[in-house]
C-alpha cells in the first residue's frame, strides 16, 4: 500500500508540474509573440512612424500636392488608398481612391472614421499641415477593438495576475488530488488483488470504474491460477499417497522376508553358503527398507507435506552426536572420522528439525563410508561466519562424481507423459542413465527446507567436499566474558572400539 501512496503522490506532483510547464510555455510563447508583433508594422510606434512619414512625404508645390516616389510605392504596395482632407472636409489629394469613398466629410464622419473604418476599410490618420492625412488598408485585413482600462485596474494588474496564477495552481492541485484519490481508491482494490494473487488466494474484485478491465482480468487470472493450484495439489497428493501406499503394502511382505532370512541365517542345519545367502537376503531387505523410508521422506519433502518440527538446535551437538553414532555403530576399521568444531560454535543454535538435520548429516557421512570400501578419512568442520553456520563435510575417498551432482540439480519434469514411477529408478536402464542420488536429494531437500545452502566443491569433475550453510536462530546465547572457552576440538578421533 505504501507503493500505491507513492504512485498517487507522484501522480499529483506530475500533474501540477505539467500544468506549471504548460503555463510557463504559454507565457513564454505569449511574450515571444508580443515582441515579434512589436517589430511588425501593426506596432503602434511603427504605425505612427509610417503614417507620419507618409504624411510628411505629401507636400504642396506649385503644381499642387506631390508625393515622394518612395511613399507612393509604399502606398501602392501596402495600402488600399491614401487621401488628404482639408479643414473644410473636402478631399484635396488622393491616391488609388476607390469610387465608393466619398470626397467630402462632415465632422461626424471624420469622428467616426478616424477610430474605426471607412466603408469597411480600416483607416489610420495623421495630422497634416493642410488637414488630415488618411491612409487605408485593404478591407478585412485589420481588426480593431476598443480597449479601455481604468488606471486603478491597470495599477492592480500585477497583484491580480499573481492571484490569478495562484488560484489556477490551487485549482490544478485540488483537482489532481481529487483525481489522485479516486485513482488511489480504484488502484487500492487492484493492488490488494495482486497481493492476494501473490499469496495464491482467490480474488473477487469489483469490476467497475476506471480499473474495471484490469479487475476483470485479475479475477480471471485468479480463477486460472486457483484451478492450476488445485490440479497440482491433487496430482502431488496422489503421487505422495501412491508412494505412501506402495511403501505401506510392501512393508508386511518385507517383514516376512527379513524374518525368514534371519531364521535361515540362524538355522544350524544349514551350511555356511546357505547361511551367507540368507544373510544377503536379510541385508538387501534392510536396504529396501531404507530405500522405502528415503522414498517416502523425499516425496514428502518435495511436496511440502512433511511437518517440520522446528526448534533451536545446536549444530555442534548434532555433529558430536553424529560422530558418536558412527563410532557406536561399527565405523569400518579403514575409515577415520575427524571433527573440528570451532569454539564459537558452542552455544550457537539454528532453528531446525534436529531429526531431519541429523538425517542429512548422516547421509553425507554414510555416503563417504559406503562408497569408499577401501577406506578414507572423513572430516567435518563447523565454524561460524557472522550469522551463518558453515559446515564442511569432506573425505579423501573417491568423491562424488559430477554426473551425480548434475542429476541432483536436474529440474524435475512436470509433464505427465514423461513422469516416471519413482520406484522405477532402481531399474538397470534408468540407473545407467541417471545415477542413484536419493541420499543426496534428501540432503538437498532438508537443507532447502531449512532455508540453508548446499554447495559442492568440485575438483577435476569430482566433489570431495560438501558445504552446508545454515542461518543461526535469534536465540543465540551470548558468550559470557568470564566463561573459559572449551579446548579446540580439532583432533583426529582415535578409534575407541
Amino acid at each position, binding site marked *: 500500500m505504501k507503493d500505491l501512496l507513492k504512485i498517487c503522490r507522484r501522480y499529483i506532483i506530475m500533474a501540477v508540474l505539467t500544468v506549471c510547464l504548460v503555463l510557463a510555455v504559454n507565457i513564454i510563447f505569449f511574450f515571444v509573440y508580443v515582441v515579434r508583433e512589436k517589430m511588425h508594422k501593426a506596432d503602434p510606434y511603427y504605425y505612427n512612424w509610417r503614417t507620419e512619414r507618409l504624411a510628411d512625404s505629401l507636400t504642396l508645390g506649385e503644381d499642387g500636392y506631390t508625393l515622394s516616389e518612395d511613399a507612393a510605392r509604399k502606398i501602392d504596395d501596402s495600402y488600399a488608398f491614401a487621401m488628404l482632407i482639408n479643414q473644410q472636409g473636402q478631399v484635396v489629394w488622393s491616391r488609388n481612391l476607390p469610387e465608393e469613398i466619398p470626397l467630402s466629410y462632415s465632422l461626424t464622419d471624420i469622428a467616426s472614421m478616424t477610430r474605426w473604418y471607412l466603408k469597411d476599410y480600416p483607416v489610420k490618420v495623421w495630422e497634416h499641415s493642410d488637414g488630415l492625412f488618411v491612409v487605408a488598408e485593404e478591407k478585412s485585413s485589420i481588426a480593431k477593438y476598443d480597449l479601455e482600462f481604468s488606471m486603478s485596474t491597470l495599477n492592480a494588474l500585477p497583484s491580480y495576475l499573481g492571484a490569478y496564477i495562484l488560484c489556477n495552481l490551487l485549482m490544478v492541485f485540488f483537482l489532481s488530488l481529487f483525481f489522485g484519490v479516486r485513482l488511489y481508491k480504484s488502484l487500492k482494490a487492484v493492488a490488494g488483488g495482486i497481493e492476494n494473487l501473490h499469496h495464491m488466494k482467490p480474488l473477487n474484485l469489483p469490476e467497475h470504474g476506471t480499473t474495471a478491465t484490469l479487475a476483470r482480468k485479475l479475477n480471471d487470472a485468479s480463477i486460472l491460477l486457483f484451478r492450476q493450484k488445485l490440479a497440482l495439489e491433487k496430482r502431488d497428493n496422489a503421487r505422495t499417497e501412491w508412494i505412501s501406499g506402495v511403501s505401506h503394502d510392501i512393508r508386511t511382505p518385507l517383514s516376512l522376508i527379513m524374518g525368514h532370512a534371519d531364521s535361515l541365517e540362524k538355522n544350524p542345519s544349514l551350511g555356511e553358503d546357505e547361511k551367507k545367502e540368507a544373510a544377503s537376503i536379510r541385508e538387501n531387505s534392510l536396504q529396501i527398507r531404507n530405500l522405502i523410508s528415503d522414498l517416502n521422506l523425499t516425496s514428502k519433502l518435495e511436496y511440502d507435506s512433511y511437518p517440520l518440527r522446528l526448534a533451536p538446535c545446536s549444530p555442534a551437538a548434532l555433529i558430536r552426536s553424529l560422530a558418536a553414532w558412527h563410532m557406536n555403530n561399527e565405523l569400518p576399521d579403514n575409515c577415520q572420522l575427524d*571433527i573440528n568444531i570451532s569454539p564459537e560454535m558452542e552455544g550457537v543454535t539454528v532453528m531446525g528439525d534436529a531429526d531431519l538435520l541429523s538425517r542429512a548429516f548422516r547421509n553425507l557421512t554414510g555416503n563417504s563410508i559406503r562408497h569408499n570400501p577401501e577406506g578414507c578419512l572423513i572430516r567435518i568442520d563447523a565454524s561460524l561466519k557472522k550469522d551463518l553456520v558453515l559446515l564442511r563435510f569432506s573425505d579423501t575417498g573417491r568423491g562424488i562424481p559430477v554426473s551425480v551432482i548434475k542429476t541432483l540439480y536436474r529440474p524435475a519434469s512436470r509433464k505427465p507423459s514423461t513422469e516416471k514411477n519413482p520406484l522405477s529408478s532402481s531399474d538397470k536402464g534408468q540407473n545407467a542413465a541417471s545415477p542413484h542420488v536419493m541420499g543426496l536429494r534428501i540432503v538437498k531437500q532438508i537443507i532447502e527446507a531449512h532455508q540453508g545452502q548446499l554447495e559442492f566443491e568440485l575438483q577435476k569433475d569430482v566433489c570431495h567436499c560438501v558445504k552446508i550453510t545454515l542461518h543461526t536462530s535469534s536465540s543465540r546465547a551470548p558468550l559470557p566474558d568470564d566463561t573459559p572457552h572449551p579446548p579446540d576440538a580439532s583432533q583426529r578421533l582415535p578409534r575407541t572400539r
Partner: protein
Amino acid sequence: MNHIYECKILIVDDNIQLLDMLVSILKKEGYQRLCTAGSCVEARKAFEAEMPDLIILDVMLPDGDGFALFQEFRTHTDIPILFLSARDQDNDRLLGLGLGADDYLTKPFLPKELTLRLAAIIRRTYLSGSAAKSSDSGLTLGNRTVRFDRGTVSSPDGEVSLTAKELLILRKLYENRGKIVTFDALCDAVWGDGYYTYENTLMVHIRRLREKIEEDPSHPRWLLTARGIGYRLEQEGRS
C-alpha cells in the same frame, strides 16, 4: 513372574504368515506362552480367554482399528502393549505412544530388534524390582564396586561417596555402557541443559569421578574420553 520367558503374549495381526513367523521367532527366543488373533473379534475373545501379560498389536485390522482396540483393552487392564505396524508416519507413531503404548515398532523389522524391545518392556513392567536390584547391586570396575543405591564406590582402600552429579553422570554412562555418550547428552542428563557453559564443569566432574573409580586416574581404564565427542564407560573384559 520370575523370568521374561514366562510372559504370556497375545499377537494380533491379520497376516497369517506374519503371525506364524512371529510365533516362530518368539518360540526360538524362548517364549512359550503365545496366542494369536487375526482380527479385532478374535483378539477380544483371546484377551478374555487367555488374559495375556503382553500384547503385540497391529494397527490396521480387517474389522477395526488397532488404536481403538488398544483403548478398549486399556479400560480393562494396564498390561504392556507394543504396536507392530506398517504405518510409519510420525503421526501414527505419536498417536500410538500418546495413547499409552509401551512401544511402537514399524514393519519391516529385524527379529532381533523385536525380541530386544519385548524383553525390555517385560523387564520394565514385571521385573523392574529385581532388575533394579541387580543394577543397584553394584557395578564392578576392576577392584572397585559402584553401588548406585548407596551412591558409593568401594575399593580395597575403603569406601568413598559419589556426589549427586557424579552419580548421574556414571548412571548415564552405565546405561550406555560400551558406547560413546556425547558431552551434550551428559549435560542434558545431569543439568537438563546443553553443553554450552558447562564445558569446564563437566570436565571437573569427570576428573573427580575418575579419581574415585579409576586405579590410576591419569591413565583411565574405565571412563574413557572420545576426544571432541564425549565419554565412554568401557565394558568389562575389553580394556
